[in-house]
């Protein structure tokens, strides 16, 4: 089938510094122009322009009606790609062919004027997005209903809450009828209910045969919405495949799988620091996944120029959603003041943590005074179910810890 979007060898380079500064003054430019003739004599030298390659040889095609996710870390080039696709900035080289009209929603409320009312902004925004006035008039009621702002239609949008702002912006864009819709992370704002509604709308839109390019950091949303996903890394396409394949790859690559920690040289200047940390089972074998019914030992080695008074070493156990499960502190006052190295061992008894993924954070600190060192999420481990009655219904949330509750039952006569 013929693609609706064809991207070929797309490159985008930004010059850092040099002539293309954020903006220059006329004087600088005049001086630069005056100098130019003399530069010829310096040809031998290599031009020292700092360039930044935002996109590197990007190639892909999109079929009509597809919903494509674009993921990648910050700075991977997602926004640049969308900006080029929506003709805001132009590529340095390469070519894009678009076989349909494009509407892009790169930021919530683009083109809204704070002084104008909701009603006026619907027309303004619609026109900016390329709609004709009659087209907007036809869809007006639908847009207002979708955004749920009936009561505030004649209030200047500067008095809107951010939620109302987003709803109105999305509503206008969703009622556009382009063949290609480009959406960048707009759903991050707005309440859960509205997010759901937006996703539903986008789903609908794609079912009518329109093509959507969707950038998000929320893997759940991507997985829900997109059949295919493109993973960008440092400006290049590293993966372009079925969404679940790409998301799996991305999530796992993203997660530091470290089961031990070793300080780098930069830590050595501190008076006290964590030199290494590792996690073991009962047999003192290093590992990163544990049965729910075995104890976990964490051994932390620290180095010090001197032992600071009242210092403590804290270990924080967090779950995969960064929720703190518990904190354990070790007071270090029992050490001789001139000790150069020491080790702390923590033991988490068996059947405390429920099957899940966890991370460990360490902090050397003096309570209420000073944080000497804080190393966050440096060790990751998981606990698997080796046969509890909950194993049968895996995936349900039974909490983070095994219940220490004692239960007693009596019949009341």
């Amino acid at each position, binding site marked *: 089938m013929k693609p609706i979007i064809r991207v070929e060898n797309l490159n985008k380079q930004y010059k850092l510094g040099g002539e293309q500064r954020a903006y220059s003054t006329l004087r600088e430019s005049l001086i630069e122009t005056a100098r130019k003739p003399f530069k010829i004599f310096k040809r031998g030298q290599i031009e020292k322009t700092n360039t930044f390659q935002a996109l590197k040889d990007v190639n892909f095609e999109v079929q009509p009606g597809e919903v494509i996710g674009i993921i990648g870390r910050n700075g991977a080039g997602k926004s640049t790609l969308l900006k080029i696709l929506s003709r805001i900035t*132009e590529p340095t080289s390469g070519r894009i062919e678009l076989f349909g009209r494009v509407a892009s929603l790169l930021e919530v409320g683009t*083109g809204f004027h704070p002084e104008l009312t909701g009603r006026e902004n619907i027309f303004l925004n619609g026109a900016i997005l390329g709609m004709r006035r009659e087209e907007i008039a036809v869809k007006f009621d639908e847009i207002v209903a979708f955004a749920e702002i009936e009561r505030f239609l004649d209030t200047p949008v500067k008095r809107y809450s951010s939620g109302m702002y987003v709803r109105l912006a999305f509503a206008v864009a969703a009622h556009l009828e382009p063949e290609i819709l480009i959406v960048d992370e707009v759903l991050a704002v707005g309440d859960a209910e509205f997010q759901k509604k937006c996703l539903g709308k986008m789903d609908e839109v794609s079912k009518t045969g329109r093509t959507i390019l969707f950038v998000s950091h929320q893997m759940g949303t991507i997985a829900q919405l997109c059949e295919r996903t493109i993973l960008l890394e440092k400006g290049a396409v590293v993966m372009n495949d079925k969404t679940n394949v790409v998301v799996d790859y991305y999530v796992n690559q993203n997660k530091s799988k470290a089961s031990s920690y070793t300080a780098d040289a930069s830590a050595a200047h501190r008076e006290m620091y964590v030199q290494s940390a590792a996690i073991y089972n009962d047999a003192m074998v290093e590992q990163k996944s544990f049965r729910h019914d075995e104890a976990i030992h964490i051994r932390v080695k620290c180095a010090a120029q001197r032992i600071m008074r009242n210092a403590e070493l804290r270990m924080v156990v967090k779950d995969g959603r960064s929720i703190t499960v518990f904190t354990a502190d070790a007071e270090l006052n029992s050490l001789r003041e001139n000790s150069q190295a020491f080790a702390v061992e923590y033991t988490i008894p068996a059947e405390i943590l429920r099957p899940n993924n966890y991370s460990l954070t360490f902090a050397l600190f003096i309570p209420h005074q000073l944080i000497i060192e804080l190393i966050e999420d440096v060790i990751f481990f998981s606990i698997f179910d080796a046969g509890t009655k909950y194993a049968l219904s895996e995936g349900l949330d039974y909490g983070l810890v095994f219940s220490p509750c004692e239960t007693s039952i009596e019949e009341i006569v």
Partner: protein
Amino acid sequence: MSLIVKENPTADVSLANLKGAPSEYHLPENPLTVIKPSSGWVSLNLRDLWQYRDLLYILTMRDIKVRYKQTLLGALWAIIQPLFTMLIFTIFFGRLAGMPSDNIPYPLFAYAGLLPWTFFSNAVTNSGNSLVGNSNLITKIYFPRMIIPMASVAAGLLDFLIAFGLLVALLFYYSVGLSVHILMLPVLIVLTSLLAIGVGMWMSVLNVKYRDVRYALPFIVQLGLFASGIITPIPENWRWFKMINPVAALIEAFRAACFGKPFDWLSLAAAAFLTVAILFYAAYTFKRMEKSFADII
């Protein structure tokens, strides 16, 4: 401010309302848009501009509405500016300095010059700052950028029309009979607008790159007030000056149209020629720079 989110029945059935839903959208043979680095000559792409004509209208309306939102006097400001300048000119230049005014009552003479000048200078200032002022649009969305400075000029036309009402009143007050020359007014207004678009567009491009423009513009406008024959007519033997300053020629023609005096066709032709030349030069520069706006603004 919080809102109770309720399920909305209309949103769920909106699929059915999607008229012309492109489920049977047939891909065109050739791409609608090809995005590639621009090189060499650029086309003005007036077709694109025409497609977005609604945006021009809406941005113009936006500029007008926003200007007088939360003001006490509103559109009266359109009259206040030229009126008070006229009063001051009348006192200092008309009475105290006794400047010649072509046998027209000085207040009328000054106002008829200040009217197009105020329009022109405001239009150039506003459109010169318009791109930078709308940087949020430029970095977020595509549309022909030329619309922005154009809308700024168009928004000034309303002020001009309001202030024109006062000129009509003054003409009656001083019982200056209207002549057939008044028919030239629309032509002159169009020429002045085009000149303002040309200069404003050019300034707006420079402003994207060199913020000096923001500081230079008010200064240039101030100089222009004295160099465009507003305070006193340009002397006969200075005709060459009207040939190189289209604003002076247009203002003189504007007065001639109002007071039924003979037109200086040669200087008017020169002004028309310069207007078109400036307009094309500005449009070309604009188009050439347009694609890098988002990167450097």
